[in-house]
């Protein structure tokens, strides 16, 4: 089985290289019949890589320990879902997964654009094929997932117990899909430059892919944060680890693009800016993959320049140079469109939002690379703590949220200061009322109050505008609110998906603000019968149970939770001692309400029944996950194709 898999990958390499060459040749005009053949090459690549994936998954499911990857990442006791997810548990398999996702996306993109975007599809497909060929080259050379195992093993190493969580089944493929998905917009950007097509054409080809890639990355990051919160036991959900940052930065850039692409469609400007954003998102995706697989961040000395890290660095360099060359060669085509009416117009606020997103990304990148840069330029390694990112990203995200609110009242191509202030009165009042309520219940921290004011302002601005448009449509069409609502969303799914995403972001912000400023924690050593008081809660430690399952020893602490004498149930934080893994794993116990989470970690136990507990109260964390759900729904709505006969953009604009 392994041999067939390797052969498939080699054939895929041939097919993708051929496809790239044939697309370029056919675009040059000499051999037009090559275009069909090139497309078939891309489809063949997709088929071959898919077959390799099927073979590796089959090997995992049948415990084929003749393959080293199967030995390293699976075992006989794993259930089917986790066996399948082992496909992306290790370096080689996850590269194969990303290669497969890119192959599928490329095939879909090319088929879909074959007639719609005829002028652009050729070069775009060539770029996709080149990227795919690069990834397959890695799989065939330094990252072979079908490598034979050195020693014939009867049992595999199994899954890292920390990854034994349903979230870990979904989180990696979502991020890998996001990275792969960012290739498509970049491919069309390069094609737009190469063909000299009017700047507006490539946007229609690219919009759906940009939203999809954004959605993959956004949901992937939130699931990763949720996993960190419930599995890792430190009470937080985001630590600005380089791996986390690698998944965040491309997402921020593509978010900026989602906004400025709308501005380009409306005003015809920002063509060059949009090309740059899409390229930057792609470069950051490649760079992120490079960062997390090359070991360069642990120390600059572990990076040898050969192997995986070197090849990614080389590919990134080549891609950047290729893009810059195209931009310079085509620079005459990049200036057009109407200038922004003023800063206080919608395109002005969109531009400002873009600057903020790009600025935030730049600072996150600076923080992530700082140890490397300081080691290279100053000879001594200096790191930036978590607090750097919080201090920097916090205020910037807050300003962006404020703009979400303000932007609702701006108009395209008009300087809208006076009408804006009139419209803004209602959300400002809502914000002030929220502040009054918060101060009343005891929330006094300056940053928290400011942040929550901005959140209240932004969310009410979005709702008020949405309501206004709803009312306008209902009056114009003489229908009920529900029909008007559905019709509205179907006529402009991108816009209303965007409203939902903004609301989701506000919810997430509320969760982040609450848990960042008002969390509390304490540690205690308790004997059976002791009570730990934490805020309004009394936690009564009752004792410890031990029991064994086929693959581990479980130690459970029984904790009864009360508040003011009333019982609130039980929590059972646990520690597992796996047979195959040397590290003990703690299972956190969480009691979640809308207001706060009560989070209990079992640090350890003694023979005499004494236990060490860490208790945290994290306010508002549930809002983060709820906001994530709203984000997902909003993103899916935005992907929905616009209902053609419903399209009447004029009516909403008239209501402005």
């Amino acid at each position, binding site marked *: 089985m392994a041999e067939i898999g390797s052969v498939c990958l080699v054939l895929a390499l041939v097919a993708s290289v051929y496809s790239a060459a044939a697309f370029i040749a056919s675009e040059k005009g000499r051999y037009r019949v090559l275009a069909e053949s090139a497309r078939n090459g891309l489809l063949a690549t997709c088929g071959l890589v898919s077959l390799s994936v099927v073979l590796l998954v089959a090997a995992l499911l049948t415990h084929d320990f003749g393959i080293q990857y199967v030995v390293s990442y699976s075992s006989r006791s794993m259930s089917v879902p986790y066996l399948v997810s082992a496909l992306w548990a290790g*370096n080689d398999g*996850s590269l194969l997964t990303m290669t497969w996702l890119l192959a599928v996306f490329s095939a879909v993109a090319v088929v879909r654009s074959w007639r719609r975007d005829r002028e652009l599809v050729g070069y775009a497909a060539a770029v996709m094929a080149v990227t795919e060929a690069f990834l397959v080259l890695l799989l065939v050379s330094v990252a072979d997932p079908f490598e034979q195992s050195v020693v014939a093993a009867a049992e595999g190493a199994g899954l890292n*117990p*920390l990854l034994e969580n349903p979230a870990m089944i979904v989180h*990696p493929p979502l991020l890998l899909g996001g990275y792969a998905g960012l290739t498509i917009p970049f491919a069309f950007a390069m094609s737009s430059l190469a063909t000299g097509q009017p700047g507006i054409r490539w946007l229609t080809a690219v919009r759906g892919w940009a939203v999809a890639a954004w959605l993959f990355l956004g949901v992937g990051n939130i699931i990763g944060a949720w996993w960190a919160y419930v*599995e*890792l*036991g430190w*009470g937080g959900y985001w630590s600005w680890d380089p*791996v*986390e940052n690698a998944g965040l930065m491309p997402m921020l850039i593509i978010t900026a693009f989602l906004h400025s692409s709308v501005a380009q469609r409306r005003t015809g400007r920002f063509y060059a800016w949009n090309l740059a954003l899409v390229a930057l998102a792609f470069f950051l995706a490649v760079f992120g993959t490079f960062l*997390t*697989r*090359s*070991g360069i961040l*642990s120390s600059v000395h572990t990076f040898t320049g050969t192997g995986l890290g070197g090849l990614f660095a080389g590919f990134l360099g080549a891609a950047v140079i290729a893009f810059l060359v195209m931009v310079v060669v085509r620079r005459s085509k990049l200036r057009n469109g*109407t*200038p*922004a*009416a*003023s*800063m206080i117009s919608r395109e*002005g606020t969109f*531009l*400002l939002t873009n*600057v*903020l997103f790009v*600025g935030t990304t*730049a*600072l996150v990148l*600076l*923080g992530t690379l*700082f140890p490397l840069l300081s080691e290279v330029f100053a000879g*001594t*390694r*200096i*790191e*930036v*703590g978590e*607090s*750097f990112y919080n*201090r920097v990203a916090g*205020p*910037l995200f807050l300003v962006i949220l404020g703009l979400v609110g303000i932007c609702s009242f701006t108009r395209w*191509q008009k300087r809208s200061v006076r009408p804006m202030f009139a419209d803004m009165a209602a959300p400002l009042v809502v914000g002030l009322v929220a502040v009054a309520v918060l101060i009343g219940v005891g929330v006094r921290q300056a940053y928290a109050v400011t942040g929550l004011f901005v959140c209240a302002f932004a969310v009410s601005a979005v709702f008020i505008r949405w309501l206004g448009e709803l009312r306008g449509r209902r009056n114009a069409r003489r229908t009920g609110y529900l029909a008007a609502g559905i019709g509205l969303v179907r006529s402009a799914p991108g816009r209303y998906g965007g409203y939902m995403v903004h609301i989701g972001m506000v919810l997430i912000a509320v969760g982040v603000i609450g848990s960042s400023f008002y969390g509390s924690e304490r*540690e*205690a*050593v308790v004997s059976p019968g002791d009570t730990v008081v934490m805020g309004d809660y009394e936690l009564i430690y009752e004792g410890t149970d031990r029991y064994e399952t086929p693959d581990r020893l479980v130690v459970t602490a029984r904790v009864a939770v009360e508040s003011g004498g009333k019982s609130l149930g039980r929590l059972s934080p646990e520690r597992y001692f796996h047979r195959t893994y*040397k*590290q*003990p*794993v*703690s299972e956190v116990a969480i009691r979640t309400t809308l207001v706060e989470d009560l989070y209990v970690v079992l*640090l*350890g*136990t*003694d023979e005499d029944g*004494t236990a*060490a507990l*860490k208790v945290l109260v994290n306010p508002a964390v549930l809002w983060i996950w709820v906001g994530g759900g709203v984000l997902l729904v909003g993103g899916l709505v935005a992907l929905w194709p616009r209902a053609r006969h419903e399209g009447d953009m004029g009516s909403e604009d008239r209501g402005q």
Partner: protein
Amino acid sequence: MAEHRSAEVGGHGVLKRKRILIGGLIVTAAIGYLGFLGIRGTAIYYYTVGEVLDQGRAVYGETVRVNGHVVPGSVVTEQAGLRMIFTIAGQEKSLEVLYQGAMPDAFREDIDIVVEGAMDSDGTFRARSILTKCPSRYEPE
């Protein structure tokens, strides 16, 4: 609409474009300054065990990060796991670390870790947090 637009192109347009450009630059500068303040306020020196011991008294009390290898057999837990004492080694030197709090699940003997905290005048390291690698990293071991 059309009249609006043509009024903006030409002399007015250039002025507006300049104003927007300047506005953008101001915002960018503000962001840059925010970053500068952030780095100045949160920069932490990162040493290996050998390097931090070589620093001697100079680093006492200062928050630093130290990278070392957890010496097998050196891990002692006290108070049912609330406190941990272990030794990290590097460059043929070793350093005793005291830590109170939740130990990350990825912590175990014989691995490389980074501890963040301060050197005490008695030569031990009081760790405030333990940094282990994100388990989904794909780096070669």
